[in-house]
């Protein structure tokens, strides 16, 4: 499949997605609207209960600190138990809505993109792949993820899932990485490490990834000025870096970054596999929306991210297997 065909295919299938949305998804979402509204309105209820709880506590402290009225203490206890019970109901309703959304909305969209792929909403890419990529910070304190996709695109096996890597510092949660993580079989053998990192200086993008250039090897200057504006290359073997990152590959990487505008894209090459981390500020890219009904725009954004896997494989031309690696 030629390079531009993937983008063309994405546009064509978007027409089918639109029809699916109007004819299947909207009615299905309407039928389960009660679940979604229950989950969001009960949350409002819990918020109100929490406000009452705090207010009564403040009132006791200021009005009668020596002899707090018994009935207020009893009321607060009952309120706590009640809120606990309601919170449990919210979790159950959310889980049900999420299961429905994954099975009836997301799964058909994945099938539309490629019906051979496996989709596991509760699973994520295995930790050892994150560690091997060396893209996501040197500390793996709290890794969470989901919406695992795996399968083949032509001759290339791949996996992709959402990923969040956080740690706690001074009672705050610091996010090291949040976005999509992809890895696939590369079409050449190589032994050393090469990184292609978003060029923060030239693209005005905020640095959302922790990357230690001191262990990444030497900075390798490439010949394509546009590529150098978007990326910086580091490698423990500059000749191998040029073996991997051919002029055609540079064009492909520019193509990926243009297809997903304003997103930080980073690549890593190790052990004959390519790893790609795409940072996104949204907490959960594929989560069922609770506070609003799903719009076509939100659905298209999810569909577009599911297509990322094909875009990467085709832009990097990973299915061309004319060298010693089959």
């Amino acid at each position, binding site marked *: 499949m030629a390079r531009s065909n993937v983008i063309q295919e994405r546009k064509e299938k978007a027409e089918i997605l639109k029809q699916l949305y109007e004819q299947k998804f909207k009615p299905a979402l309407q039928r389960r609207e009660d679940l979604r509204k229950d989950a969001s309105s009960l949350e409002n209820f819990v918020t109100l209960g929490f406000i009452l709880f705090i207010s009564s506590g403040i009132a006791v402290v200021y009005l009668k600190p020596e002899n707090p009225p018994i009935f207020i203490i009893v009321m607060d206890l009952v309120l706590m138990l009640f809120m606990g019970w309601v919170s449990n109901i919210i979790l159950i309703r959310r889980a049900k809505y999420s299961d429905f959304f994954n099975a009836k909305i997301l799964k058909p969209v994945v099938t539309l993109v490629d019906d051979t792929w496996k989709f596991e909403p509760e699973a994520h890419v295995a930790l050892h792949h994150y560690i091997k990529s060396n893209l996501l910070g040197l500390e793996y304190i709290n890794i969470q993820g989901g919406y695992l996709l795996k399968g083949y695109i032509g001759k290339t096996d791949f996996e992709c899932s959402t990923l969040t890597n956080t740690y706690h510092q001074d009672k705050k949660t610091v996010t090291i990485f949040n976005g999509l993580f992809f890895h696939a079989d590369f079409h050449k053998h190589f032994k050393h490490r090469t990184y292609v990192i978003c060029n923060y200086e030239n693209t005005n993008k905020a640095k959302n990834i922790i990357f230690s250039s001191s262990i990444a090897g030497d900075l390798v200057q490439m010949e394509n000025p546009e590529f150098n504006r978007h990326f910086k290359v580091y490698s423990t073997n500059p000749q191998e870096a040029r073996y991997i990152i051919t002029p055609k590959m540079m064009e492909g990487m520019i193509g990926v970054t243009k297809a997903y505008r304003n997103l930080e894209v980073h690549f890593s090459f190790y052990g004959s596999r390519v790893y790609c981390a795409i940072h996104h500020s949204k907490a959960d890219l594929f989560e069922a929306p609770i506070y609003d009904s799903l719009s076509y725009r939100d659905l298209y954004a999810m569909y577009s991210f599911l297509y990322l896997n094909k875009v990467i494989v085709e832009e990097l031309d990973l299915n061309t297997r*004319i060298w010693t690696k089959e």
Partner: protein
Amino acid sequence: MEPINIIGVIAIASIIFLIAFIGLYNHLIRQRNQVQNALGGVDVQLKKRYDLIPNLVALVKQYMQHEQGLLQQLTMLRSQVTTPQLKNSEKNTLNEVLSESIGKVLVSVENYPQLKASQSFVQLQRSLNEAEAQISAARRTYNASVTEYNNAIQTFPNNILAKMMGLSSKEVFRTTTSAERQNIHIQRLF
């Protein structure tokens, strides 16, 4: 200013100048060595390609009865290009002609479906593609090293020291044969 202070200032300035001189000298030497290293890298990859040519000739000659002239040319080029006394420019030109000849052989294989389908030929073709990809990477590395070296010896104040050391600009690798520079017209190949 007291004489002792003047001597002190001159001594410190001399030390700083000496450190800078040593730093620049070492930097230029490192750049020159890097170019030599990169050139060695190209030769290593070219050697791997040379080693594949006898296998290619042996495999195709039993099928390609009408291309004996082309195969003889290929064998002759291989022995010429491995001559030790060749200058770099002559070696580059011969390697380019060798690349063209290998290309012609591989295109001619299209006329021999049995050969094209044979597993041995497919594997050999992959090995040749691999060799070409590695040669291309090595040449790009060499060009990057030469560019860095040329920048180092031509910019001020390095150019003063470079002239004293007898260092001169080097040429990047570029195609010398006109055939490779032309856009390939597919029809002309068949």
